[in-house]
């Protein structure tokens, strides 16, 4: 007899205030990480305020801890927002499928993230950086509405230290500050200016639905990417993460079990229910 809804308790080691409303929480269970793969997600909660679904944002190869990043928006996230290092956080998971790194090995990679969607991208990006020799050229394109909305500002330079790795950061027009030295422009616009070709390259795209829509269009129609080489995630509302509660399906696909990672080709065959 087993209770699949019973969470484990993890200890908060560190909290990073990324933006006004977004934080990254670093956790340990028995002073270590848990076994997960990039792209998977968990159900996190400050018990008493309900569970929330978040993707992991750290590389599973960094085994001392695991991380997620969240934006305060409702009851559960406000609950987590009130916690401090040393406090306990309840956690269930990992759930769902993951990015298929075997398919990415030996290829050039382009990681495209928008807003909080950069969280799962960071997990797979840092996983690939941790095993840098296994992959070809890596290009990172990350955009947010404004400079103040950018997550992970302190680690862009770490990513840039790896060889054959380009990191392009952009903010929406009007979101720049006077001392801003990086790009200004919407993600799809900047994407089309990058020296990328669809050959031997895998693209990972996560962000708000509108960004995904236009980024996929650019990749497929203007840059010659094959739909099977573009990987993205769906973020339907979830409760159980276990294929029981019945709310995350898109047609016959249960995002919590069959996803959240899908190729653009798989998404194309789904009914318009997301």
């Amino acid at each position: 007899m087993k209770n699949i809804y019973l969470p484990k308790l993890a200890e908060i080691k560190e909290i990073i205030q990324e933006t006004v409303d977004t934080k990254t929480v670093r956790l340990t269970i028995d002073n270590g990480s848990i076994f997960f793969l990039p792209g998977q997600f968990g159900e996190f909660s400050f018990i008493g305020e309900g569970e929330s679904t978040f993707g992991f944002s750290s590389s599973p190869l960094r085994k001392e801890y695991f991380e997620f990043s969240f934006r305060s928006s409702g009851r559960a996230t406000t609950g987590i927002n009130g916690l401090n290092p040393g406090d306990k956080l309840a956690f269930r998971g990992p759930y769902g499928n993951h990015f298929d790194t075997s398919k990415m090995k030996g290829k050039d990679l382009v990681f495209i993230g928008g807003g909080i969607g950069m969280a799962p991208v960071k997990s797979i990006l840092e996983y690939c950086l941790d095993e840098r020799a296994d992959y070809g050229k890596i290009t990172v394109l990350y955009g947010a509405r404004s400079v103040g909305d950018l997550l992970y500002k302190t680690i862009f330079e770490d990513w840039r230290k790896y060889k054959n790795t380009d990191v392009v950061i952009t903010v929406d027009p009007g979101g720049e500050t006077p001392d801003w030295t990086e790009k200004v422009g919407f993600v799809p616009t900047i994407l089309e200016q990058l020296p990328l070709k669809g050959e031997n390259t895998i693209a990972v795209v996560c962000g708000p639905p509108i960004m995904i829509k236009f980024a996929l269009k650019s990749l497929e129609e203007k840059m010659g990417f094959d739909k099977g080489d573009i990987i993205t995630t769906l973020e339907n509302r979830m409760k159980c993460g276990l294929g029981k509660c019945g709310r995350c399906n898109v047609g016959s696909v249960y995002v919590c079990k069959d996803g959240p990672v899908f190729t653009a080709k798989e998404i194309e065959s789904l009914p318009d229910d997301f």
Partner: protein
Amino acid sequence: MEEKYFEISAEDLKKFVDSMIKDNFEIIAPMDRDGDTFYGKIGKFDDANLDILLPKMSYKEYLLPKTETLFEYSFSGVDIDIKDGIESVEGKNRKRVIFGGRPCDAAAGPIMEKVFNWGYKDDFFNERFKNLTIVSIACEKPDDYCFCAEMQLSPESSHGSDLLLKKTGDKYSAVVVNDKGLELIASYLNLFKEIAKDEFPPDKDWKKIFEIEKAKSFLDKNFKHNYFQDRFLSCIGCGICTYTCPTCHCFDIQDEGDMKKGKRIRNWDSCQFAIFTLHTSGHNPRNTQGDRYRQRLMHKFKIYSEKFDKYLCVGCGRCSRNCPQDINIKEVVKDLTELASA
């Protein structure tokens, strides 16, 4: 186990039930009170009303309670104490029998069991299901809302029952479907008379007014179709159809309590509510009641059957009988079969 056949008089059936109650079985049977009909715990055989065609609510709540505690919590400083709810699954150690339920309700159990066991196993459901013995009574006169025959069952189907009774005059013929059924009557065998298989009354030829496969073939090809938006304009999204349905199983998980102690519970939820799929960003994949009723149809007649090979509907007709807007699923599914041929 091979099926076994028996006969029992109406008088002895009463004795059978009253003896089980005396032997500490918890008997859940169709009852009525103040014009309301439901499955409830009886104190004696005469508390049950076996003339009710189908109680308003199914006995789903004995498998998946309206609300159930997943765990309890209490805080002391930063430490959290968690008490696992699975230890106290209500009904776990009880000898619980559903007596006099209908074949459609019995068929719903195994249908839900699949959902609660693909991939991860939900032992809250499993423990309850395991400890439930189901004694059904075949229907003699289904009403216009019923369509169990169309749903690959029949008013006399024994699917999902451990013991099925059929009324023949002032006697009942009984088929014991499995070991659970045999175990139940083992102590009361003196009340039953074993008969040969060919003495058991054969099933009547129940007519079907549509072929369900046709409805599926329409759903396979038509996610976007005006029918859904037009037909369900009158739906007010109250969710009654899903709450009264014996196979609808979607749930919500919520925390209830304060900063000191409380519990995490799961409650029945409904795909007919707008907030069911509402994203935090405000985006909602199912924005209209048409989208939401389409999901109900898709889940029942396409999605479930693709995953598990049967349908997520037993044709009990409750969702139609109880709909305040008179939306009749039997007519709707018939429409789909006609649209498929159109």
